């Protein structure tokens, strides 16, 4: 066990965690932030994507202690209160989700893309998002949503 000090969605968090506690379990079970989903458990599907210091990571592969001293953003922290993030608005308007299980991961991965590259091309979007699987949409509307949020055609 060790004491973990980090910032989650802008708020300070201090918790005792086991050294081998996975970040996804820490978020979902200890902090009850169940918006982060676990799909494959091996870092392939991207459903558990969260941002650590602004970079997308698979929280199913990261240890909670890996986030010590860091800033974690989960889907619960993407909107500013009731004001949705432009990506959330775009996913709603363009049907970039269906069952919604991969959506938190998609939005966080896309947020990291737009933070790094505000005007991505369609090819940039595809390349960046290839680690986030979606079984419902066939991806076309995810691309449309991200492009719309970025204001590119």
């Amino acid at each position: 066990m060790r004491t973990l000090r980090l910032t989650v969605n802008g708020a300070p968090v201090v918790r005792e965690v086991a050294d081998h506690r996975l970040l996804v379990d820490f978020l979902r079970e200890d902090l009850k932030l169940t918006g982060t989903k676990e799909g494959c458990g091996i870092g392939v599907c991207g459903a558990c994507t969260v941002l650590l210091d602004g970079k997308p990571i698979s929280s199913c592969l990261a240890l909670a202690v890996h986030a010590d001293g860091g800033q974690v953003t989960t889907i619960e922290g993407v909107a500013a209160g009731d004001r949705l993030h432009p990506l959330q608005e775009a996913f709603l308007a363009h049907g970039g989700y269906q069952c919604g299980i991969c959506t938190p991961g998609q939005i966080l991965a896309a947020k990291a893309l737009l933070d790094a590259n505000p005007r991505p091309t369609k090819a940039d979007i595809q390349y960046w998002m290839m680690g986030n699987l979606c079984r419902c949409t066939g991806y076309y509307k995810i691309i449309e949503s991200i492009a719309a949020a970025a204001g590119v055609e």
Partner: protein
Amino acid sequence: MAAVTRTGKAIGQPMQRVDGIAKVTGRARYAGDFDLPGMIFGRCLRSPYPRARIVSIDTRRAKALPGVHAVLTGADVADVRYGRLCRDVPILAKDIALFVGDKVAAVAADSVEIAEAALERIAVEYEELPPVLSAEEAMRPGAPVIHPEPVALMPGAIAGGHGELRMYPPIPNVISQLTLRHGDVAGALAGASKVFEHVFTVPPVHQGYIEPHSCLVSIGADGLVDVWVANKGPHIARAHMAATIGVPEDRLRFNPVTIGGDFGGKGSLMDTLLCYYLARAARRPVKMVMTSFEELTAANPRHTANIRLRTGLDRDAKIVAIDARIVFDAGAYAGFIPGPTLHGYSELAGTYRVPNCAIEVLRVYTNTVPRGHMRSPGSPQVAFAVESHIDMIARALGLDPVEMRRRNAIADGDPTPLGDRRRHLRCRETIDAGARAFGWDAPKAPGIGRGISIYEHPAGTFGRSTVTLTVGADGRITVMVGAPDTGTGFHTIAAQLVAEHFGLSPDAVAVVQGDTLTSDFEAGSSGMRVTTTVGQAIAAAADKAKQALAALAAERLNCAPSDVRMGEGGSFAASGTTIDLPALMGWAAERGKAPVTCKGENTPNQPSDQTSFAAHFAEVAVDRETGQVRLRRLVTAHDVGTIINPITHQGQIEGGLIQAVGQAMSEQVVLKEGAVITAHLGDYKLPTIMDIPALETVLLPGGNGSGPFATTAIGEMSNVAVPAAITNAVFDAVGVRLVELPIRAEKVLEGLGERTRAG
């Protein structure tokens, strides 16, 4: 008469989904997201052998582990069998394990880690028995009998449809044998100008939903059992749970949850019954979430199929008869599907004029992972065979594949291959619209190939749907449904339909999913039924509610109910006076007459002459050096009626297509010595965002819709026949015929080698 495609105030609008904000903010709650005080975690131990006698199980060391609250084996749970029709699935294997992954023991503990440590402390002694690993092997005389015990059937669930159905006929390991006949096949084949016979194999694929099967069971002190489970039909699931464990239905409450993808795979109880027995033994709420590894190796993927087709043609290349034998490998248990067999046989050339037709469908046990339903059960397998076979015949006769299909396309006046009558058949029109958009006749470069496949299916009308519609004191309307939205947009469609009936904006309508105690029966999303069946229930409830509101308006306006007219925005008018719904309901509330609540129900299995068509066109580039196939573009053409929500409709098209691309290009549940070896998402290749081709969708409005406001179904239309368009394109490119899915570069290269040697 063709239905007119209409756009109303609420239908036809690209309305944002009612579950949207919850889903983009992470607030939507899936079964695995629920949490209860005192909750512990269940895990199970699975057989490593395809067929083995369980000699002994020693659980003492597991029980001694701190944090373990319950350890169960087959001896500790009721000797009952679960099944949606065939009741052959034990809670835990007793005496014998029937596939690699069969559950033999289970643990509930304070954490998943402790539960898994406890599993490692369970000693099981097995005696390996010779397994049966293929359907053909299973049917041989003298083959080991996988289920020697008599298998009970759930009452009232057998739907034979056409033909003669025999359950558990005297062929080893056969679950069901269905024979269908229309016309004189033997005579027609004898008189045919040419007869072609081909055999096709379709391996299993996984539904690929990202949310694994999850459940949480809590048994209250009062005996009420609360269940949160990723299941698309909670009312049916509850009935099956009650029938299996002997707890009355009104003591079982299935709570509303969001479903993280279904695609046919989440119709069973999976681990829920085991979870119940763990909760009972531990006296604590228990949660079980399958790992992705368990999902891929031990859930209920699509049935393996072997399909032999024999088709006779006359001198004009017109089909005179088809004789088919379809063998579905069901794996170790039959109970994961609600019917005796898969309805895919009805896809056998439903697109073609086939005057004589005979089909035998066998569903067979093997010692492999049990199979379930997936997006149009049985149809993708059969459609791959038929659409490859027709292409092979066209090529052998020197006919253009589009021309071959146009020549044989079913049209008004033709019975279906099984003798049904349908009308407003736009098969040829759908082919032509797609071919035009695709540029079928345009010149192409070497190494580029083009293929077509076509499909037909009516909307589902089976199963009961019931809704409760409440017009509140504030004039807002709530519609309660009894099943989750599996992701398709069903709840949003419900809101739009209610709004349309009352001339309101969908914003004035709330959709609530009730639990199984508060909501009425809903069979759930399957078989392209829910828009039609829930739509009928909504129409019935809306009619009643409008009558009740008109009576209230008459009272308020001092006139006869027959003088009241319903106007825009849910208002009511009589003799020059208008009252809007909030004002009317406010007035009614003061007199104790609000809310107004009405139930509506559909009429299941109404005979319908409705169907619709799809035509898919694929263009591939094949690398002759490596055999690699690249899918460059798809054109998908659909014969559609009224589209209620263009966003969700197009979402069904795009998602269905890319699932089919997966089945064609990369997905296969690979079995080796009975075990699934594609055991994680690194080995089981779902399409990624990099794998999607350029896409053009062509919609032909004006289709014959039987659903509310003349809708046609879409969810399976975009998916079923697509793989054959791609393999047909590979043949067009390099002359290599693939009779087995998926396309693998090795197979293409091997085919190219054979052609070189032969040439």
